């Protein structure tokens, strides 16, 4: 079964049509990279998938459970309760981390599992400690976000998302806010998650990384997915002029 299915998604901001007709599905264990020029709608797509933004039209479902359904020519969202449940299926890592500055690293990680999922504090702390260690963050439990480097903060935010045991993890340009010398440590962490078959959708401008880590690459342009396929297909044998043009700009 697919973890996520997006069908014919349309989204406008006022008169600006940002997503014109986007369909995409994510298999369990699949790593998807979404690439494309600035303003093509990549972030908007992730925000629609993570319920931060409402679509105008189209179907969204997680594990076969509907977020939106098309009834006649209307698109209706599921009940608040159902949406709350579905929010437990995914996690999102933001470009600028959005850690909670008044919580320690540990509290950032354990608070949602405890106060949202109502899990036992001891279990959560144990799991969190293991995750932090795996991400090279042991010893930082009692630091506050402002005491960490950008790379460390982003790794904490990845741990925070993982602590809720999501079925799928979204990343919106997870390294764009980092100094170049810090991107490596974050990409490494994402690579290690890919090796453990974590299902992921990653919006990125790091082409080399997308090629290495993704099973499927989607190229977005102007509100459409213009091309998709394996990294070899998309990067080495692009079919569309748009894609060729985009790659030239990156390589040249």
């Amino acid at each position, binding site marked *: 079964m697919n973890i996520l299915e997006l069908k014919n998604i349309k989204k406008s901001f006022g008169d600006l049509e940002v997503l014109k007709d986007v369909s995409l599905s994510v298999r369990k264990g699949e790593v998807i990279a979404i690439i494309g020029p600035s303003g093509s709608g990549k972030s908007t797509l992730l925000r629609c998938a*993570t319920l*931060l933004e409402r679509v105008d039209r189209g179907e969204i479902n997680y594990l076969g459970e509907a977020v939106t359904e098309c009834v006649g020519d209307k698109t209706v969202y599921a009940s608040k309760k159902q949406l709350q449940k579905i929010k437990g299926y*995914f*996690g*999102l890592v933001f470009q600028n981390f*959005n850690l909670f500055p*008044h919580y320690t690293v540990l509290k950032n990680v354990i608070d949602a599992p405890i106060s*949202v*999922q109502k899990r036992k504090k001891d279990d959560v702390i144990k799991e969190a400690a293991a995750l932090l260690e795996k991400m090279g963050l042991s010893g930082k439990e009692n630091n506050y976000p402002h005491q960490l480097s950008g790379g460390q903060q982003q790794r904490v935010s990845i741990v925070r998302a993982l602590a809720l045991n999501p079925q799928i993890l979204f990343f919106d340009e997870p390294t764009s806010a980092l100094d170049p010398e810090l991107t490596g440590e974050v990409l490494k962490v994402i690579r290690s998650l890919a090796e453990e078959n974590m299902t992921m959708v990653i919006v990125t401008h790091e082409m080399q990384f997308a090629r290495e880590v993704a099973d499927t690459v989607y190229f977005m342009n102007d509100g459409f997915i213009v091309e998709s396929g394996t990294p070899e297909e998309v990067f080495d044998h692009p079919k569309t002029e748009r894609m060729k043009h985009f790659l030239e700009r990156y390589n040249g």
Partner: protein
Amino acid sequence: MAFEVMLRELSSGLLVSLEIFFLTLLGALPLGMIVAFGRMSKFKPLQLLVKLYISIMRGTPLMLQLLVVYFGPYYIFGIRLTSSYRFIAVIIGFILNYAAYFAEIYRSGIEAMSKGQYEAADVLGYSKTQTFFKIILPQVIKNILPSITNEVITLVKDTSLAYTIGVAEMFTQAKIISAAQSSMTALIAAGIFYYFMNLVVAYVMGLFEKKLNYFK
């Protein structure tokens, strides 16, 4: 009049001033939060009503507001005023006025929070209430503390306005004594008291700010 007698009378006035001060904070700090939510409400009529309330409270003299609260019930409804109502009227007037100022401080603090904090909380599954109390409010409090301090310092001095409707707080007492003695000693002593109270306010608020220095 002996110096000690003067001090004793001033201190009884000081107690009344302190009462006004603390009761106003006790009422206006929470009421301000409710007013702020009204001001930010998506329900337009409520929002406009609260906006009007705030603009009147900030746009007219507190002294006038105290007079309206005190004499209003008589002139508007013909209700006979008892002497104990004086003090109540002062407290009501102060709370209504200060709630408006605090509301604007809360609102600016809440609106200055980055959207990212709300979105992170939303994706993690926090409810609206959890998000506000656990994530947003602690950060807002830290950010608005300096503005709150300013307002509280003004409140210390504003308590003297209670003399308008004849509540015997410190300033009223000082004026009476000073007139009786034909000397400024009592007024200067009262000035020192106000100044000292504000030193304490600044110190205490400084402690709060320090306490919240652990995050940025």
